């Protein structure tokens, strides 16, 4: 008999990051969340001056075109996300210190800030990712609308996130480190009806 007592949140301490494992309905997998470690992350803010020169320098340094809107662009293990006018988030699984790389390449064209430790990165896969996120977000995440390459900085169940769709079946989500436990609680709770797997880190 399903009762509140069987709800996965009841056994999950609210002040601890959920441990890896399967949550919710057994035997099905609606959503898998995998924590991605080892990314080097930085914010990049255009300084007053020459936007074209900045774009050119970024192209040279990362092989990526600076997105002019809330979009994600990828090249190999490098990603650039537009987060605001003149502001981007750079992620790299290639560079050990993307902030350093950018600082060296861009000089006075941009202000660079290392954020590698500020966020936790989760890759979400499975047929029910959009349905799960729709329980906390107020943006249109219909897979026919929120297409691969689209990105959004928004709110998920009172928690700020940056979200983009990397490919057809993979969504990537950044959340501030201090909110990781709360965000996972939301995912566990919301995806439980579909079957939710939290993968080992790495």
């Amino acid at each position: 008999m399903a009762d509140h007592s069987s709800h996965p949140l009841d056994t999950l301490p609210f002040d601890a990051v959920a441990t890896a494992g399967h949550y919710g309905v057994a035997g099905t997998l609606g959503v898998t969340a995998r924590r991605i470690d080892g990314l080097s992350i930085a914010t990049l803010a255009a300084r007053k001056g020459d936007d074209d020169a900045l774009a050119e320098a970024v192209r040279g340094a990362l092989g990526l075109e600076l997105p002019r809107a809330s979009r994600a662009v990828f090249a190999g293990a490098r990603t650039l996300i537009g987060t605001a006018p003149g502001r981007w988030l750079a992620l790299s699984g290639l560079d050990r210190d993307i902030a350093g790389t950018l600082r060296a390449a861009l000089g006075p064209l941009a202000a660079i800030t290392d954020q590698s430790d500020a966020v936790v990165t989760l890759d979400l896969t499975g047929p029910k990712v959009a349905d799960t996120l729709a329980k906390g977000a107020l943006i249109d995440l219909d897979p026919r609308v929120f297409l691969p390459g689209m990105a959004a900085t928004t709110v998920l169940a009172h928690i700020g996130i940056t979200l983009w769709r990397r490919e057809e079946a993979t969504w990537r989500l950044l959340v501030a480190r201090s909110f990781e436990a709360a965000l996972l609680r939301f995912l566990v709770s919301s995806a439980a009806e579909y079957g939710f797997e939290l993968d080992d880190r790495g």
Partner: protein
Amino acid sequence: MSRLAKGGLIDRARSLAFTFDGRSYGGHAGDTLASALLANDVRLVGRSFKYHRPRGIVSAGAEEPNALVELRAGARREPNTRATVAELFDGLEAQSQNRWPSLDLDLLSVNQLLSPFLGAGFYYKTFMWPAAFWEKVYEPIIRRAAGLGRMAEAADPDPYEKASTFCDVLVIGAGPAGLMAALAAGRAGARVILADEDFLAGGRLNAETREIDGKPAAEWAARVTAELASLPNVRLMTRTTVFGVYDSGTYGALERVADHLPVPPPFQPRQRLWRIHARRAVLAAGATERPIVFGGNDRPGVMLAGAVRTYVNRFAVAPGHRVAVFANNDDAWRGALEIKAAGIEVAAIVDVRKAVAASLVQQAKAKGIRTLLDGRVTATHGKRLTAVDIVADGRTERLAVDTLAVSGGWSPNVHLTCHHGGKPAWDEAIAAFVPGIVPPLLAVAGAASGAFSLGAALTDGAAQGAEAAEALGFPVPLPDVPAVAEESVAITPFWHVADSRGPAFVDLQNDVTAKDITIAYKEGFRSVEHLKRYTTLGMATDQGRTSNVTGLAIMASLTGASIPETGTTIFRPPYTPVSLGALGGHHRGKDFRAVRLTPTHEWAKARGAVFIETGAWLRAQYFPRPGETDWLESVNREVKAVRASVGLIDVSTFGKIDLQGPDVGTLLDRLYINTFSTLAIGKARYGVMLREDGLVMDDGTTARLGAEHYVMTTTTANAAKVYQHLEFCLQVLWPQLDVSIASVSEQWAQIALAGPRARDVLARVVDAGVDVSNDGLPFMGAIEGTVLGGVKARLFRLSFSGELGFEIAVPARHGAALAQALMSAGEAFGITPYGIEALGVMRIEKGHVSGNELSGQTTARDLGFGRMASTKKDYIGRVMAGRPGLVDPQRPTFVGFKPVDPSQRLRAGAHFLKIGAAASLENDEGYMTSVAHSPHLGHWIGLGLLQRGPERIGERVRAYDPVRGGDIEVEICAPGFIDPEGERLRG
């Protein structure tokens, strides 16, 4: 049993058992609780609100005023549930409510005897004598008698959730118009949501025996529903009520995920709140039948005609065995014929009209139904209805019937069209309010717009669905509108049989009678809102669905004005009541608000920390050791350890903002009352910033790490507010400044290390070449380096405690490792982790201001920062800080306090009075902001704001704390109880 032998949309193969008031009954899948009760011949289902009169089921939908029950039991008890929309499930438990001791024998029905005195406005005119009796005697009795069902006594055990969805066209209502609208827009390729409150799509098509394209209407509805379900761009949401229209195309909807089940299936919520964002919407919510008011019209067995028809056709239930129809419109005649066709005796159709279409009269007569034109029902008889008195053609007769099916016509369900404040308009032709000014991008179709005939509803629905899709750029082939026979919809407005016997109820649930409306009229409560408020007409859980228009019409007849002159009925959200659980969703209990954890949370937990909520954060409050029984004991130990040797605390929760660019110094000079552009690289400075109104906004330390690179710290509480303020300055006030900011609060874990041995400990964790000596890192120094073998770090020589202190920031993933390394490095010195209690004690001992002083009501001057303010530059808040009220020397100013008798405890929140002065507002001189027990001094100490405080050092005042029984003498002292010269922190 009153279950008909055949027909209906119930699943006779699936039998369901349920109880009502403890008695067991049976029903079928597809039943509502009401239909199942009727099938079991249960006629008496509730008691009315005021007079506790016996009441039966009146309707077959959300408009039900009478059949309210407590559904389920224990923590799942749902009061005031309408039996008419509660889907039957196996094991359902229901109880009648608002009766004692039982439904059959309700002692409060004594109120009926008092009813001559309990008219509208009664309460306002009485219960005033003697004055003391209102609260002691009258009100408690009234409160006990009031209310309907009982809410559960324990926490709701079922989960709820919320979700958002987006569509091109939202169609509200899956009756004939809604189905056609959804079909038109869906076939065109638009993203469509079709929502219906019922568990079965089709609306009236399930309740009438009409034909569409030559097939039974319910079959057509099922076929269209199946087609819609097959379209990938259409989402069919049954059991989903759209309850509110909000701004920018946002609709609130409630999905009853599991209300038709004993308990929610595993991991599913009971209900789900939907926020539907629609670019266009078509409202096809149908219409609600309204009664005619006459004496004795509340007797169980008096029902709405359409409801009788619905029970017969959809549920295969005979609500009675001998039915009379009382009506003013053609539709009720068709209902009578359908009832008759189901094999139920129809004794007569009584129509108030003098003339009715000949074809209807002929059909009725052909079926053997008596027709009485120009007729009235003037009385009813029986505890449960046994007979009605009828006047027709000047003759009175008593007709033995057990059911009276009443129809005063139909009111379009315009509710949602009113949610933006638009008023409906009166349509004389159908004697009903139709949509007036509707919310933007919402169209109304079918009966909801007054198109009552089936053909018109289908045509209108198709047109509105197509138009909505087309407006959004979808090429729309208009779907073929299926063929239906034409029907007449003639009506002659008729509201109230004035010459009838017995109380004539307008609002059945709130027991508002026609006479109450007369009282309101006589006393001048004639505007529709006064009428509603004075009589409570339409204020019950059915929101006046069956009573508003009738009440208005009766008032109009009294004033001689027309109905539209008298007023309109408007509706506010929600369309039907919505559970608070669903509106709260996931956010209850521990998930009420997201928790934030520090980088050392697990580390602190492993060390036995007790945590405390600090805004969204959980922070270590103190670290009790075995044997310590009192928090103060632990805190005292922690403070002493720091002052004697060394301790550490996670201070990562402070806001941290990186500022880069050539103009950072200029910006900071405009933000802070003091100057930062002159700060040397490698140094930090304490700053205070004001709001533009001149009061203190926040404080913190800002360090200069490079020529064009500063890092600012804010208080934990104001981190987001200060960041937003900076963006306002940079984007709105001074966009030409070349400054980029980035929040790095989450990037850096920051640990404060304090105590005379702090440097010794720090020296053991920094990498070679990082000089933390007094020369390398002097007081207020700020340098970058590495620790723990190559981990980037920012090192600050700061002190909140007053001891030699450092703050070490490392990338957050290394926070716990840093804490651990410091613990190991400090082991020899007895290093002690401390929590925010000890931190608070030490800052009070040192006389630093904090949250309690930064109340938003204090100026820089109040807090002793007057001389810090630069006079050489402008900064935010400077001009307004100069207002007379803010520079008044009488303003309470920051000082310290100690008890004259050192054994006495101080309390924050105590007010200061001159010794000997009376405890009165005029003598109030300020208040204690913060207190702590100082283990260093061995007594309590405090900080506070006192009039002319700094001039009164050494003087004594009363700390008056009557809410905790405190009234003690304290001595005013400088705010800084230890090391006032600051030798320790410079050491």
